[in-house]
């Protein structure tokens, strides 16, 4: 297992252990904050273990990225950023002209969704091409 994956798995296990310790020793004084901390640590533990073990299972000792994939990732982020910028500009104009109103949470949710979807689609498309100019 690569060092990086070991660190991820270790952090995940440590978060889990802290959550279990809190559950055992702080069970009598279960305030809302203790409960929140336990939930956070459990989720973080699952995420880190999944990242460490999952990436090890997918890549094993192979490199995760090389010069070609780094170029693709950089262009993917640029596309994602540009599309998101255009989307936010359009949303601003629509709001200003009273055509379409959104709450802050809706606008942030939509922005994040578009940003992630564009990045995934662009990466899938660009990885099928050999090179990007």
């Amino acid at each position, binding site marked *: 297992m690569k060092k990086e994956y070991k660190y991820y798995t270790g952090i995940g296990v440590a978060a889990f252990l802290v959550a279990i310790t809190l559950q055992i020793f702080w069970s009598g004084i279960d305030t809302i904050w203790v409960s929140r901390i336990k939930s956070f640590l459990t989720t973080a533990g699952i995420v880190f273990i999944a990242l460490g073990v999952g990436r090890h299972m997918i890549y094993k000792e*192979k*490199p995760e*990225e*090389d*010069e*070609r*994939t780094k170029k693709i990732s950089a262009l993917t982020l640029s596309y994602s950023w540009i599309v998101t910028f255009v989307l936010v500009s359009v949303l601003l104009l629509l709001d200003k002209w009273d055509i379409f109103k959104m709450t802050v949470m809706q606008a942030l949710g939509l922005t994040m969704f578009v940003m992630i979807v564009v990045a995934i689609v662009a990466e899938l498309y660009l*990885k099928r*091409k*050999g*090179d990007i100019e």
Partner: protein
Amino acid sequence: MKIKIKEFRAKYNLTQEDLAKKVGVRRETIVFLEKGKYNPSLNLAYKVSKALKTTIDELFIFED
């Protein structure tokens, strides 16, 4: 540009996976290199030629 990675790979009985491992890139990069669809950096071209015990100009032949 004519690329002779495949010929040299066959000469040394190396798979794309073996070459990728030697050079430190993903197998797909070697696939695109062999097909002539990816222009490598000078650094990668040097590493590939070194792994195949040849020179860059023997691996990548530019035709006018």
